[in-house]
């Protein structure tokens, strides 16, 4: 079983990102369990969402304390909260930022830090506003490439099925962010 946690701010789509990823993984014959942090959500306030994925039915019905992967939709959360809390040593943390992974040396010392400028991608595709882009679909495209956990095509299928507004723009954003991530990985491996 693999366990994920997604950090965002209310309105950025963290809960929807968890659901989309669940649907994408379900299309690849996995059992999935997607849930928000149980509580009250407010626009702009920190929001977390969770995902379990396994080849067998999932028995655990409790909070995720030690995730394998973390996705951060808003880079200001890295300073404001302990986004890596409980992350397994060597686990991946994917951050939406225009800056490189070397910006986070303390996280890099313990985890695999990956970054993508999902905000710019989302803005280019007219998702949300330029100051408050909705980045969840873009970052899932990047996550598919960075994690290898789920196929980009499954992510795009989930977006087409589940996103009620601008599904085409959201799919295009996921594909562009996936390309950016693949290019960044190529550079990193040279």
């Amino acid at each position, binding site marked *: 079983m693999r366990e994920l946690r997604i950090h965002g701010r209310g309105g950025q789509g963290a809960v929807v990102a968890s*659901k989309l990823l669940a649907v994408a993984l379900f299309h690849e014959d996995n059992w999935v369990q997607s849930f*928000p942090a149980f509580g009250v959500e407010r626009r702009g306030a920190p929001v977390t969402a969770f995902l379990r994925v396994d080849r067998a039915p*999932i*028995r*655990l019905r409790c909070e995720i304390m030690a995730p394998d992967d973390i996705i951060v939709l808003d880079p200001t959360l890295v300073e404001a909260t302990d986004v890596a809390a409980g992350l397994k040593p060597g686990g991946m943390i994917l951050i939406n930022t225009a800056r490189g992974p070397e910006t986070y040396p303390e996280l890099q010392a313990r985890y695999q830090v990956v970054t993508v400028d999902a905000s710019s991608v989302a803005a280019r595709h007219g998702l949300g506003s330029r100051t408050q882009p909705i980045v969840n679909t873009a970052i899932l495209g990047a996550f598919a490439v960075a994690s290898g956990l789920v196929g980009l095509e499954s992510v795009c299928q989930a977006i087409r099925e589940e996103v009620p507004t601008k599904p085409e723009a959201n799919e295009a954003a996921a594909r562009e962010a996936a390309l950016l991530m693949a290019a960044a990985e190529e550079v990193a491996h040279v």
Partner: protein
Amino acid sequence: MKKVIVGNHAVSWGVQLARTEVISAYPITPQTQVVEQLSEMCASGELNARFIKVESEHSAMAACMGASAAGARAFTATSSQGLALMHELLHWAAGARHPIVMADINRSLGPGWNIWTEQTDSLAQRDTGWVQLYCETNQEVLDTTIMSFRLAEQVNLPVMLVLDAFYLSHTAEPVDIPDRELVDAFLPKRQARLKLDTAEPHSFNALVPPASYMEMRHALQEAMREARTAFDEVEEEWEQRFGRRYGAVEAYHTDDADLVLVTSGTVTSTARHVIDQRRAAGERVGLVKIKMFRPFPTETLRAALAGIARVAVLDRNLSPGRGGIFAEELRAALYDVPAEDRPQVYGYVLGLGGRDIRPDTIDTVIERTRAAAAPDREDLWVGLLGDDGAPATTGRAQTSADSLPGVEA
């Protein structure tokens, strides 16, 4: 068709597939998504039902009773304080033998104001005459919703299906949504024996004097008895058509067990995980899941638990001054078991107000049960702040609400 949906929407799908004719509800967290999606289904024409907006849960149940008296298939959903507000009419719905189906999303009662899961809201309605069915997965929620209508209409009793707040209501997982034609064959249109009908007038709910009231109550009790066997028949047919069944009571790895957990709701899933791990290490532990709370499946539980040395009941609920409610009911059910086969019952209270129940919480229950030859009191609390994990411990003395984060003394 398999879809990844939250538990609240599993209810909505079940209500839609059941071709429910009247829905009346008042929103309350964490139930709101149920009727939100149903109102959308009514608006889009996917569901040909009358959606009656009302000003309170009390009125919602009144509207369902009126609809049911007119022969319609009626549904509502609520949680916590909303269910408490309905209390008066819950007695009425059952006494008047209206086969209404209601979903209760288990939520604690305030104060302290809390929107998280706990079973006390539904269990506090145990004497109202409603059948109560608790669910463990979103698939079970959808299946139980449809089966509830069939059971209710067969025995003329209202049915409350119960699911945990958030752990099911807001958790998305794969659910197989059955084909409409197959559900139609399982659940035909309701045929009310008596209904409000100008062509064939009857008087309903007149004054009932001592000369006949007691017979009405006896008939209600007999209907509950009938519901116990009718539930098994309904599940049998559901299994034939859809390949799934749950059981009023399910025994999991109990055959050679010397210690058995008794669970209900989503705690069951996490407990299965713990049982599997301990079985793999050679430990003789098992689990009994109670799905049906009313009518209480006394005989089935006696058969499942007789001869097992120690039984640990996990109660995410509290009857203040008594303890966990499932433990209390189970002790009464096991009293007639011969002494040599009668289990020692350990009643654990845990997870109140949505406090997380994790595998290590259940490990604590098992270890404390193994460590004490007998419980030293009826209510054994697990997971209190400041709990030191000592065997057979309890404890108000060990903690203080003043130490809760964010609470000023």
